[in-house]
């Protein structure tokens, strides 16, 4: 039993790490693309702010799945299998350079694992619709409309100003707005892992019921997500900052401000929106808010497809893992196979590596030449 708990804690921290580098782009992609922050500085700043955010938040949500599955039937084995599903989906989407919600991956993994372990009765399908599908459809639209309007307002007003002053000013403003997104992210996402670890410890009786997370849980979850963030998920940063559109600093500022406002106001009203979907919607909105901007809808469409696939795909892997991971031998097998798949994905990523140096120079989309010149702001 104790071995299983250790396995869950370690797997949860690995998930937290992938969550970190998957989501660096949400806060920093446009700041890196516009040159407001140098790539390495940006990801380090995001990492530090995620760590701070992990300690700042007062409430840790003591729920693993937000009511999507019957939590009374969740065992450490189910959590382990669910985390494996989420981690593998995060790695695959990272390889493809596509932003996708880590929360949805975690939910999917847990749903699949619970289904296999306890039957379909353990899953609250109506909650899945209300908490996953509806926000999935609406949050990018809300963030997009807000960012589009803000961008249009900025460009209309800024036509009267001195270009150099405006450029410098918006870059400075972007540093602040990107930091706010990173901080809000830290308070949200590090908590997920803390909740998972704490609830596992409660399940096996190592902590009393309704216990707050111990300091080592808060610290390790914060450090894992911060380390992941500071690694920089360059592939996703490139997609969000450069491949959707040529984002300029006023657009980046408008997008980040919109992301912060939507995430914070939603959290205040008791929604948990996916940071990824909000940030991506905001970037798309900002891209459309400037006249003559090129928006590559094909990239956006691919993202939308990945968002729809996230939950079922992670659920499939999670279910498979739960089916195999009955008993210690199965658990070891699942861990070994997961590590092998992770190694293959890493190996594939080295074929076309994206680094801090190359992040702002995306390859041209295959047959069609890019019509617009590269981003003017350097």
């Amino acid at each position: 039993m104790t071995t299983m708990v250790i396995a869950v804690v370690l797997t949860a921290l690995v998930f937290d790490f992938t969550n970190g580098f998957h989501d660096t782009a949400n806060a920093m992609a446009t700041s890196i693309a516009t040159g407001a922050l140098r790539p390495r500085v940006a990801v380090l700043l995001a990492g530090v702010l995620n760590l701070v955010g992990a300690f700042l938040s007062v409430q840790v949500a003591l729920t693993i799945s937000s009511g999507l599955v019957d939590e009374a039937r969740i065992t450490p084995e189910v959590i382990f299998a669910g985390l494996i599903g989420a981690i593998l989906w995060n790695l695959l989407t990272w390889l493809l350079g596509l932003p996708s919600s880590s929360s949805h991956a975690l939910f999917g993994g847990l749903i699949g694992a619970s289904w296999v372990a306890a039957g379909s009765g353990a899953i609250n399908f109506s909650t899945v619709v209300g908490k996953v599908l509806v926000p999935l459809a609406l949050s990018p639209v809300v963030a997009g409309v807000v960012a589009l309007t803000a961008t249009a307002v900025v460009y209309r007003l800024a036509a009267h100003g001195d270009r150099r002053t405006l450029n410098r000013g918006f870059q400075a403003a972007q540093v602040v707005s990107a930091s706010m997104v990173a901080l809000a992210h830290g308070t949200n996402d590090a908590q997920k892992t803390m909740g998972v670890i704490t609830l596992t410890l409660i399940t096996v009786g190592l902590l009393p019921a309704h216990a707050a997370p111990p300091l080592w849980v808060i610290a390790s979850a914060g450090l894992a997500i911060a380390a992941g963030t500071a690694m920089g998920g360059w592939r996703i940063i490139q997609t969000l900052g450069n491949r959707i559109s040529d984002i300029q600093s006023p657009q980046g500022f408008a997008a980040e401000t919109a992301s912060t406002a939507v995430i914070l106001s939603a959290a205040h009203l008791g929604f948990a929106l996916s940071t990824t979907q909000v940030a991506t919607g905001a970037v798309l909105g900002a891209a459309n808010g400037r006249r003559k901007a090129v928006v590559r809808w094909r990239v956006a469409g691919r993202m939308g497809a990945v968002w729809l696939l996230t939950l079922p795909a992670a659920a499939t892997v999670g279910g498979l893992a739960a089916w195999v991971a009955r008993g210690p031998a199965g658990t070891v097998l699942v861990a070994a196979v997961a590590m092998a798949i992770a190694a293959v994905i890493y190996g594939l990523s080295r074929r076309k590596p994206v680094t801090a140096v190359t992040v702002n120079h995306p390859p041209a989309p295959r047959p069609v030449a890019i019509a617009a010149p590269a981003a003017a702001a350097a």
Partner: protein
Amino acid sequence: MTIHWEKLLGVFVVSFGATVAVVTLVTLALLGLSARAARLGPSDAPARPALFSPPAGTAVAAVCLVAAALVVLFGLWAIVAR
């Protein structure tokens, strides 16, 4: 299953208002600072004559930046106090 449309509308209205307010304040502040830049010397491409005289521009910039900073502080408070 219930979808809380009124909450969703709340999110939209609040984030719309806050975002447009912040970007407007920051842009106005930069327009104010542009007036100073115009006085200090020729710049890249002054698209149109500055909106404000240099002293008025500085004052506008200061007021707008303070207001924007207050919104940011409120955002920080919202993060911490949640």
